[in-house]
């Protein structure tokens, strides 16, 4: 066989030659030093050109010169990952403190001794009380969500004071970029008299509160009951009711939970370090694997997926652009843990929560 030209060698390496021709070329190359070198060079060109072309995939979208998307996504991803660690850590602390009143003990401590709030590392840009009362994963998510329209607030001003205080406290704490101990005083602001929530719920007079929220559907997810409320055309929030791990002697009284709603923001994913986890009666599952609610299992799946592939990372990061927020509190009557989730601001969730409380108190729990 005569020496194959470069085109033939590439055809061979690309598997484009007929079997017979390929076999004879292979035999030739095995014995011909210059051709073996040419084959090696061709392999190098094939690999190198593939690599060069891969660099073309990292292009900006459209013609707007923005921050390269991948960089931004990763930043959000790391921030979320950091927050997740903090949440996990917080839950662990709660669990380790042990004892039936661990949840209360921890949060009381937080309130009384501001320094008990561990300052989050600044680069995490996430804050959490050791009781896990407020965790912020994505500060941009907060700045993106303006407060609800003010006229409604003005109408309700006299009644809304306490609630606003609490909301402000939450907000201030959540947006405190130092990420730390302002929490001490702020949490104190948020301590509302024990039956305040109920009182607010009973009194809330604003016009929009008069009509009950429309219930779209009610379903069961595991041990939890899920109710979907329509808060505006096409916009819904989901209420998840979890059975208390123990009967009414649950470590958190409803009043405390009401005074100190747990607010967790992690973009689209939410974890709630339910107080129930602190109860020793049933051995708590590892915090990230807690699958009692749909949301939690999504988180677990999300974490795994994120750890797995860059594509999944980007997808997960992309999901953060429409942040879901969650607030958690305990039902005054049943002791159930209630989790409200929706793509609206925390303040809005708090308002909706009051309306839901009122509706539930009136026995409206089905479509």
């Amino acid at each position: 066989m005569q020496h194959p030209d470069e085109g033939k060698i590439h055809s061979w390496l690309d598997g484009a030659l007929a079997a017979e021709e390929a076999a004879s070329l292979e035999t030739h190359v095995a014995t011909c030093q210059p051709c073996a070198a040419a084959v090696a060079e061709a392999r190098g060109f094939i690999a190198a050109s593939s690599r060069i072309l891969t660099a073309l995939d990292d292009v900006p979208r459209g013609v707007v010169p923005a921050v390269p998307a991948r960089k931004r996504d990763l930043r959000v991803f790391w921030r979320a990952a950091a927050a997740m660690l903090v949440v996990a850590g917080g839950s662990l602390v709660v669990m380790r403190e042990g004892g039936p009143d661990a949840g209360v003990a921890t949060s009381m401590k937080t309130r009384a001794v501001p320094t008990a709030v561990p300052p989050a590392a600044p680069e995490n840009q996430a804050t959490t009380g050791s009781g896990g009362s407020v965790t912020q994963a994505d500060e941009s998510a907060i700045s993106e969500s303006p407060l609800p329209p003010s006229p409604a607030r003005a109408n309700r001003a006299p009644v809304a004071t306490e609630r606003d205080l609490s909301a402000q406290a939450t907000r201030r704490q959540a947006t405190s970029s130092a990420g730390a101990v302002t929490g001490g005083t702020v949490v104190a602001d948020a301590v509302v008299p024990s039956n305040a929530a109920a009182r607010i719920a009973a009194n809330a007079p604003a016009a929009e509160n008069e009509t009950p929220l429309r219930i779209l559907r009610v379903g069961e997810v595991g041990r939890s009951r899920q109710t979907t409320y329509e808060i505006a055309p096409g916009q819904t929030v989901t209420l998840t009711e979890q059975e208390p791990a123990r009967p009414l002697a649950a470590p958190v009284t409803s009043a405390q939970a009401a005074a100190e709603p747990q607010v967790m923001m992690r973009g689209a994913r939410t974890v709630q370090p339910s107080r129930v986890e602190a109860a020793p009666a049933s051995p708590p599952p590892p915090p990230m694997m807690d699958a009692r609610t749909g949301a939690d299992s999504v988180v677990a799946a999300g974490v795994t997926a994120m750890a797995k592939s860059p594509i999944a990372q980007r997808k997960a990061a992309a999901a953060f652009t429409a942040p879901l927020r969650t607030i958690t509190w305990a039902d005054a009557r049943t002791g159930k843990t209630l989790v409200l989730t929706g793509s609206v601001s925390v303040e809005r969730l708090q308002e909706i929560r009051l309306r839901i409380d009122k509706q539930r108190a009136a026995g409206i729990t089905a479509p």
Partner: protein
Amino acid sequence: MTDVERLFRTYNAALVRYLTRRLGDRDWAEEVAQETFVRALRQTSIENERAWLFAVATNLVRDEARKDMRRRKHLALLAEEEKDSVSEPHETTLERAQEAAMARKAVDALAERDRLALLMREEGLDYNEIAEALELSPGSVGTTLSRARRRLVESYEALQKSREERENNAAS
């Protein structure tokens, strides 16, 4: 699932990547890919789907590129701007942006036919499909590809070398 849906699911990713590499703009690439599938919708039957799709997409790009050279220049300009405007130069990001710019230049330096054959091959088209899409003889695909690869790598390396020299000069 309709046939076009199947075509879309099967080939969209590869087609968009091919077009992105060809055009340097993902939005534009997606537009062209969509238009390609719309054209597929009008066909009663397509013998070799992949070759047909890549050929149509390539022709669309050619037509549009002819009409819209200005846009491309604008894009190149923006790409340069973006390269300059990377604030807090993150080592890896900067490095990658530079690599992408050099890759772009090296690819743009290829003859159109060589470039398209290479990009199609990277998307897994076999020699017959490439020949069909580009109206080449199957026997010449190997030669086209070998030339494209060699030139691409050589011009990339030349760009790399001149960059290193520039950096060395700047450092000294």
